[in-house]
């Protein structure tokens, strides 16, 4: 009976080994799940991006403790207040004159139809050497549903052409790409590996390169993405890279969260 017993012991060992391997795989998988932030979206499963600007005053979003985070670090200004702050044509007479008084003559210019001013050079390629990201860029606008347009091809990323261009002096340049598509991972999946301090290089259409350094990487539940701050046209020059993260919702066909990488220009 001994040999048979020994055989049983060998069987036990094999079974244990298989179990250990399986548990290890499962554990690794669970760790992966847990290491990404759990979505905070209150309206998980609904598709209501309309509320993004208004729904963001909460201070306990994942981004709240990141001082330089793109999103939710402060209650978004109302669009109206925003507008008065960045009116591109400030009046030369800032102080309110008394009723009926006459201001000093304002500057004047020809009202003739002018040629379109030369726009800043568009970005054509984004590189993040530390995570082997090298992605061609398309100039994109707004999709029919009011959200930012993203190139279909997950191997490309889109620069929001209505906002500032990378390399310019004011406001936030936004580049977004799909984290994946139906055929597999997208180029911007690499952003999940990017770290604070990593350099980003943006090649511009005029042949120059704008260099940035990552200062933060945060996940934000989509309804709480502070779009007014993300897409601001004025203020300190910033580059924002945006992709999706969180859980995949089969109901909506969207991920629950946005991953927002914030970078500042490297001087010189």
């Amino acid at each position, binding site marked *: 009976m001994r040999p048979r017993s020994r055989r049983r012991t060998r069987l036990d060992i094999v079974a244990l080994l298989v*179990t250990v391997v399986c548990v*290890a795989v499962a554990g690794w998988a669970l760790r992966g799940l847990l290491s990404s932030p759990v979505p905070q979206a209150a309206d998980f499963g609904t598709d209501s991006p309309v509320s993004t600007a208004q729904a963001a005053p909460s201070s306990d979003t994942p981004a709240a403790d990141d001082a330089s985070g793109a999103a939710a670090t402060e209650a978004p200004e109302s669009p109206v207040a925003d507008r008065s702050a960045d009116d591109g044509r400030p*009046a030369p007479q800032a102080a309110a004159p008394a009723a009926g008084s006459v201001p000093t*003559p304002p500057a004047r210019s020809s009202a003739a139809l*002018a040629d379109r001013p030369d726009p800043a050079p568009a970005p054509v390629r984004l590189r993040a050497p530390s995570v082997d990201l090298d992605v061609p860029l398309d100039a994109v*606008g707004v999709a029919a549903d009011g959200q930012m347009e993203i190139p279909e091809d997950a191997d490309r990323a889109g620069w929001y052409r209505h906002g500032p261009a990378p390399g310019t002096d004011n406001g936030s340049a936004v580049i977004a790409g*799909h984290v994946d598509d139906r055929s597999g*991972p997208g180029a911007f999946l690499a952003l999940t590996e990017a770290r604070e301090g990593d350099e980003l290089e943006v090649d511009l259409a005029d042949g120059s390169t704008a260099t940035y350094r990552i200062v933060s990487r945060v996940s934000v539940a989509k309804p709480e*993405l502070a779009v007014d701050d993300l897409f601001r046209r004025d203020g300190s020059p910033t580059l924002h890279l945006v992709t999706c993260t969180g859980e995949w919702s089969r109901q909506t066909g969207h991920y629950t969260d946005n991953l927002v990488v914030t970078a500042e220009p490297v001087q010189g």
Partner: protein
Amino acid sequence: MRKTTTTATALLAGVSLAAFAAPASADDHESTVSVLHGVPGLTVDVYINGEEALPDFAPGTLTDPMMLAAGSYDIEVYADGDTPDSAEPAISAEGLEVPGGANLTLAAHLGEDGTPMLSAFANDVSTTEAGQARLTVRHAAAAPAVDVRAGGSPVIEGLTNPDEKVLNLDAGSVSADVVLAGTDEVVLGPADVNLAEGTNTIVYAWGSAEDGTLDLAVQTIDGLHSAPEGVPSGQGGLADQGALLVLALAGAAGAVVAGRRVIRANVTAA
């Protein structure tokens, strides 16, 4: 040249609209006012409340916006060189009410019959949707009703002096022309008009059809943009976490199978 009459005409209809166009955050005690000179062939001095405010104001020019306190204003426009002491004004408007918190353009221009007049237009400075631009077209010319065409198809029909039409369009450059209403007879253009995103591009047709002085003037108010509503940047559901979930399930299933086997082996051994 057309004789400048001394008829005093002020069109204040636009001002009453101003309250609706005013941003809620604007100071209620003052308004943003720009002045456009759209009377051909006549350099003028503009007096506000008896004081010379815009000396040597040439046709086809536009002032930067100035802040005017809410209140009542008397506007007088004199041919260059004339003064209130030496002549009657070419155009005048008494008691022009400037509301608080509005954005106005005061335009000196010809009426449909060629009479110089002043119109106060309220500019729509409400926020534009992301990706869109606002086009305002104002008929300020001595000319009959017109249609405005963009890319050959009419976008505004039957516009008459001194009316305006406001459109919200996708931002971009459009080739626009102005035709006599209901015809293909082009009176202005075509011209490429750049409708920049987040701006109100205000186009004035001014001058006189009869005298062949029709022209376009453009005023741009920017900073009306708004942000896209979100960034939908994943489409497959195949990203790391989806794949991880599959692995986790496989791992768990493997553990169950293996566990059962261990138990069975132990039972057999016992």
